[in-house]
């Protein structure tokens, strides 16, 4: 459990600094920090303790997208401002780099494996985000009014 918390902290900090690279507004940095940590925490927990494969990415991205949707409705800021930096630890940038590097180094087996992994991860993340984004607006609005 302690490793999960440490990983969450690291991931959330990475998200926050990545959000600065994407020029996120200063007031929204806290949310990127929080959502990134939560999303990666869920992913890491599922991979580590439930031995889930790529499906863990789905649940991580799902949590991020739902949280982002609520916040964006409350603060009237586009959803993607929260989603894109927060999904950074889950996104397969490293796999993509590995695949290209293996291709250049003539290591075709590894290139193929990494490419497939990359496509799987991207598919899972995007399907999760899309499902949440295509949910009707009403779900998020009503809950918001009840809270306020």
């Amino acid at each position, binding site marked *: 459990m302690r490793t999960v918390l440490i*990983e969450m902290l*690291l*991931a959330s*900090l*990475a998200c926050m*600094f*990545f959000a*600065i*690279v*994407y*020029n*996120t*507004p200063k007031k929204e940095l806290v949310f990127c920090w929080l959502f990134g940590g939560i999303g990666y925490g869920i992913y890491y927990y599922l991979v580590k303790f439930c031995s889930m494969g790529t499906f863990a990415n789905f649940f991580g991205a799902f949590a991020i997208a739902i949280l982002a949707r609520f916040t964006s409705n409350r603060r009237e*800021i*586009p959803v*993607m*401002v929260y989603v*894109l*930096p927060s*999904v*950074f*630890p889950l*996104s*397969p*940038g*490293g796999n*993509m*780099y*590995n*695949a*290209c*590097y293996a*291709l*250049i*180094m003539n290591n075709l087996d590894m290139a193929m494996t990494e490419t497939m992994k*990359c496509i799987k991860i*991207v*598919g899972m*993340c*995007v*399907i999760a*985000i*899309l499902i949440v984004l295509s949910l009707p607006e009403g779900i998020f609005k009503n809950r918001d009014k009840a809270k306020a």
Partner: protein
Amino acid sequence: MNSRNILEFAVTTGERMLANGCGTHRIEGLINKILEPCKFRNHEIFVTTTGIVITVESVDEGVITVMKQVPKKKMHTEHISLIEDIVNSFVAGELTAEQALVELKNADSKATYPYWITILAYGMAGCFRTLMFGGQIIDGLVSVCVGVCMGIFVQALNAKNTFTFLVNCCGGFVVGFLAVLFMRFGMGSMLDKIIIGTLMPIAPGVPFVHSVNDILHGDYTSGMTRAYEAILTAAAISTGVAFAMILWKLLGGNVSL
């Protein structure tokens, strides 16, 4: 109401959104929102990742078409939210088209993060990614130094409007070269972890997610453009790193990666 002004406002909005890295379906929705209440007889919008075409058929001025090309892009989510605010106040009738256009121009020059914070962010994001990949603390420290150097390099080249492939290639080269240099002087324990962690801020993970998002939304043109961009970026970065490794081998170091 002057349809020319409204059209100029609409096309400038689209151009700014596209230049700041927004998805095309979102831009189409936004321009629709601008043009809908203006009582044109007909309007058509076509947005791709590299340009915008808007045609309007108004009662007194006939058919007007405006086209705009957007060659260079970067991610800037603060501008996106500012522009959405401006559009919302235009739709609500608080601003006329001319005022909104001036506001757009102002929003573009709005101060963002200071230079050194952006540079540091490149380093720190790389550092935490290195630690997440399982690096030691010393690897993280090396990663900060290398990442800051990479940030300075990438920003400087981008400011000079260099060819994107070359920017990424140089970024990869700087990271590979400096990482081996640090290892040479006994700092850092795992070379591959340092390199991959530091490269994460410019590695195209998030752009790839964005592109597949576009494709599943039905924007095949812009989605494929983005996907090719992402793949080319990955290729450029790894070419740069490979060059650095080859250079070190030629210089007589024993690099195993």
